[in-house]
């Protein structure tokens, strides 16, 4: 009599209902989480700073409590020496972001770890020691972007092609990269050793040992 009843868990209708409820339930949970996440990653929040953060020094420092490196917004240090309003900064970063899309950066590089693996990750490229020192970094980056094919930063014969990036686009891209380095990425990339950004103030006598090497890309 009850063979079908005994096998209710193997019946078509049970699994049809389960499929519907599980899907709907998961989707509802996702929607709730999405509202919260979108709120937290809107530019201007704690995790994703406002675009005017490019007016400040940005560092990447180990945090004891969270047990990984986190971005630290430092003293005022405007990009290209010019302090921007929030609107100006947003426009500049947006121009840079559009440039990264129009030049198809993501099909060689990764941004926040997503993209292609033919060239280095750009998440913290603003903080990379290979730009030499913080004094020459901005100019180095602009020049590299405009004319990358013959530069020392290419390695293994892999060269970044000349993508016809104008000076305005290059400066905007640098602004975008500086802003991106301020995003709290939960410690990704791990163990990154940022460029020395300490002020060369004479008061601090005990300069870090890495100082003399700062002019050249650091070799491990």
């Amino acid at each position, binding site marked *: 009599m009850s063979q079908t009843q005994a096998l209710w868990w193997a019946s078509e209708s049970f699994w049809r209902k389960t*499929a519907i409820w599980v899907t709907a339930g998961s989707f509802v949970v*996702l929607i709730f989480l999405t509202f919260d996440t979108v709120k937290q990653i809107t530019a201007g929040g704690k995790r994703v700073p406002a675009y005017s953060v490019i007016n400040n020094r940005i560092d990447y420092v180990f945090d004891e409590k969270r047990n990984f490196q986190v971005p630290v917004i430092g003293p005022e240090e405007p990009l290209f020496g010019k302090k921007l309003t929030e609107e100006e900064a947003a426009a500049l970063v947006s121009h840079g972001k*559009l440039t990264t899309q129009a030049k198809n*950066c993501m099909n060689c590089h990764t941004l926040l770890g997503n993209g292609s693996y033919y060239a280095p990750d750009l998440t913290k490229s603003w903080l990379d020691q290979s730009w030499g020192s913080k004094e020459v970094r901005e100019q180095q980056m602009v020049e590299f972007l405009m004319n990358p094919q013959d530069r020392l930063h290419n*390695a*293994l014969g892999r060269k970044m092609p000349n993508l016809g990036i104008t000076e305005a686009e290059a400066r905007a891209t640098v602004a975008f990269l500086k802003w991106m380095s301020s995003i709290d990425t*939960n410690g990704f990339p*791990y163990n990154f050793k940022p460029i020395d950004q300490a002020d060369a103030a004479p008061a601090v006598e005990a300069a870090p040992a890495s100082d003399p090497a700062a002019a050249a890309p650091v070799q491990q």
Partner: protein
Amino acid sequence: MAALGTLSTANLNGGQKLAVKYFTVAVALFGAQVLFGLLAGIQYLNPDFLFGILDFSVNRMLHINAMVVWLLFGFIGSVYWMLEDEAGVPVVGLGLGNLIFWIFTLAVVVVVLVYLLVQVGPGELKSIWLINEGREYIEAPRWADIGIVVCVLVFFYNVASTFMKGKFSGIAGVLVMDLVALAGIYLAGMYYTPNISMDQHWWWWVIHLWVEATWEVLVGCLMAYGLIKTMGVRRKIVETWLYIEVALMFGSGILGLGHHYFWIGTPEYWFTIGGFFSALEPIPLVAMVVHAVFDAGHHKLKSTNNPALAWIIAQAFGNFFGAGVWGFMHTLPQINLYTHGTQWTASHGHLAFFGAYATMVIAFFYMALQKWRGGVYMSGNLVGAWKWKWAIFLLHAGMIAMVMGLLVAGYEQSQIERAIGGSDWVAYFAGQSHRWFMQGMFWRMVGGWTFAAGFVLLAWDLMTIGKRETRPALAVQAEAAAA
């Protein structure tokens, strides 16, 4: 009616005539994927190759875009293939469907030509509308995005209204709901924001909820139909399994989205949610293996179409290993911190897309050819069977070599560049120049050439299989209802 073994559209119903058009373009685009993959692979070993003409970024974009589009064409074709059969009535808007096919194909040609000839544009919104959106997998410019949505809506209308007019089977129900989700999710990728975290947050809605949720359910539907067709598995069993798969797939896959939200600026609670649910993601894939292998064993591997059955079985295993095992290997945040954005991902991507999706579409190519040639014999001792057997072997051998080469490179990269080096510019090149990385890339290339040979053989086989066969197809051995 044409003689048995002769290719004739008179053998096909309306939906199937449209399906074979989609299949033809799909095979051509599959070829393009292989070609541009080879070029990009060569550039890893010889960076000067085509430098300044077809840079890596262009080849890689074409490689992955050709893949997305050929699989979409394959899926649309497969659904049109089964539509009339499953609904029991002719496709409702066939004329419109045909028109859309030509528009879609033309749009793809234009997009590819722009990718090849224009490549990049100035950093303005105009470039994103006309040339290239610069976002991995969905690079297609915005005008094409809108075109894709229109095409998919027409396709959806055809599918839903045909089922509504005829029979609305369990497969039909799952398929229609899945297509709603598939089309809706694509909209999440169609906007511009300067905020890269927000950008990637919604971008993953498209990428993840396509390939790790809705596409998986779509191939579940195709497999269900395929098992009924090639082996006569009872519909009740197939559909019950389909519901189980949907429950497990969406139950793990929807919140499994969280494993892409570890490092892009999104909050820390995604560590727990993403880690937990993505760890469950292999379970439905195990269910699919059990389902396919059990049915095949139950029918003693007797099928009406051996190549199709072989590819269905390949799908079950490829999906499990590529999406399930390879995905799980680096899905937990504790390991993903080091593997995120390395060749691990490439290794996983290759095996998963091939194992889960390419295989199923190829199975449908074979089912289509059988009927296209008038219901020709395709079981044991098929004339010229060496071709399909060698094709499936070479494609798998090539794929496994690529996947293993990339995996070794990925292991090395996550250790040298990530864990030790700290992921900066110098560490990146320290990882890339390591001997083990270069060896991995070499073997990937060997795998790439092997795969390309397999593709050529597959294309040749698809053009010729059943041509000299004079026997009619075996009848489907339907299971006794009371079994």
